[in-house]
């Protein structure tokens, strides 16, 4: 299957992407080699507490001193993109919007992580 994350990961400054399920578990993640540790860091975030806070939110952007995290609500849960200050923010958002329809097709509740990992990578 075509790597649907190829475009977004090729944007300068994008570290990686992940899909977090509505139960707070990480369904899939894809980080560039240089930022592999961030995949682990993302797993340490308390998503179970954060997800209810974002209940009415279709997209959110967390702006830090160094870097940003862009979160978009998708059918299986949250689509998360981690990037730094040199990344073109609008291009990142556009790519996430483009990916939304693909990610929405996957049904929540299935063993989506395994499925996506097999199919996408």
């Amino acid at each position: 299957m075509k790597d649907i994350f190829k475009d977004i990961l090729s944007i300068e400054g994008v570290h990686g992407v992940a899909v977090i399920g509505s139960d707070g578990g990480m369904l899939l993640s894809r980080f560039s080699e240089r930022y592999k540790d961030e995949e682990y860091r993302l797993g340490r975030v308390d998503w179970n507490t954060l997800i209810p806070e974002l209940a009415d939110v279709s997209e959110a952007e967390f702006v830090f001193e160094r870097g940003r995290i862009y979160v978009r609500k998708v059918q299986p849960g949250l689509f998360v993109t981690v990037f730094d200050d040199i990344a073109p923010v609008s291009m990142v958002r556009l790519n996430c919007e483009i990916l939304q329809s693909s990610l929405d097709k996957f049904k929540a509740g299935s063993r989506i992580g395994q499925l996506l990992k097999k199919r996408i990578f």
Partner: protein
Amino acid sequence: MKSKVLIVDDDAAWVKAMLKELEEYSGSFSVTPAYDGKQALEILASGQISLVVSDLRMPNIDGFELLNRVLRQYPDIPVIIITAYDRPKTREVVFNSGADEYLTKPFTPEDLAEKINRLLQKKSEGGSLHNVSLETFLQLIEMEQQTCTLRVLNKNASNIGVLFFRDGELMNARLDNRLGKEAAYEILSWSGVSVSIQNGCPFTEKQLDGELQAILLDAMRTKDESSQYFNPEEDEGKEPETDEILLETPVDNRPKANPGGKTKTAEPEKTAETPRKAKRPASGTLDAGKQAHDAGNVEGFKSALHNEKGVEDIYEDPAWNSLIQQVSSMGRIFDAGSLSAIYLNRVKKGQAVIVPGEQVSVILMNPDTPRDRIIDAVM
């Protein structure tokens, strides 16, 4: 004055080819190249650009960022986005971001020239006036409560200023890369100008304090003060300034001053140039917003953003503390430093920017407001 089109693309070979192809249209416009967004901004700051054609994907400052900066600093300059990166959503996002036109590569030079010419013609769709007494003309605009964008050509210095009117009110002004009162004063102090009229105004909220009459009076004072630089000997024998106006393309429902005006062209006047003040950022919003952020209080944001288009409300709401703590903890996990702001697009309640601080400030924006303008302002 021939229109100058800025073409921005990091593909130098493509730009070179396009410059050559567009030579055919040199009767309508000339083309200036830029090879990245940064260079494009430098050229824009020098003034004289009438239209921007930009690629979407470029290093450093990409097409979106360039579009965002043009909308903010040069709201009267139309932008055509060109891209080989065509996806079903791209067109929609590009137009939602404020672009005037969109072209997918590959396209022919004729396709591009047609779009350029159409947008350039729009700039004077309401007609052109020559040898205008600007004060008289603007008073007519005010009286007839016109909504329009006026491009004012100072024939003495060959530079163009832009005045934005909505319902007869002067909303803003631009001269080179300056927006606001300073630009308005300088433009209104010009004599012997030509004006082209475009219907519509990009500003919905007034960005200039004060009524047109008061601004005109201040501008006249500036003009009088600058007249001390006149050489009286040069002024001797000069024709008195005329209020005659030549309307080149009369349009219905548009103020027509002196409809009997002849095609007489005034002799170029030798006016002393108004001394230029030091350039300053187009808006004080960014600096003021940062100060408010550092101070961490709602009143600071209210004062910094009171003129910002699309801001609906600013208030304190400690209920967001829990989210701020969650997200701040995420920042620590990622070693990303402190949290500057949270942007939320809420299904029912719309867009908001939440700024942590001693007080948690919430800035509500209407759905059409580009979020980056507010995020940049509070950082």
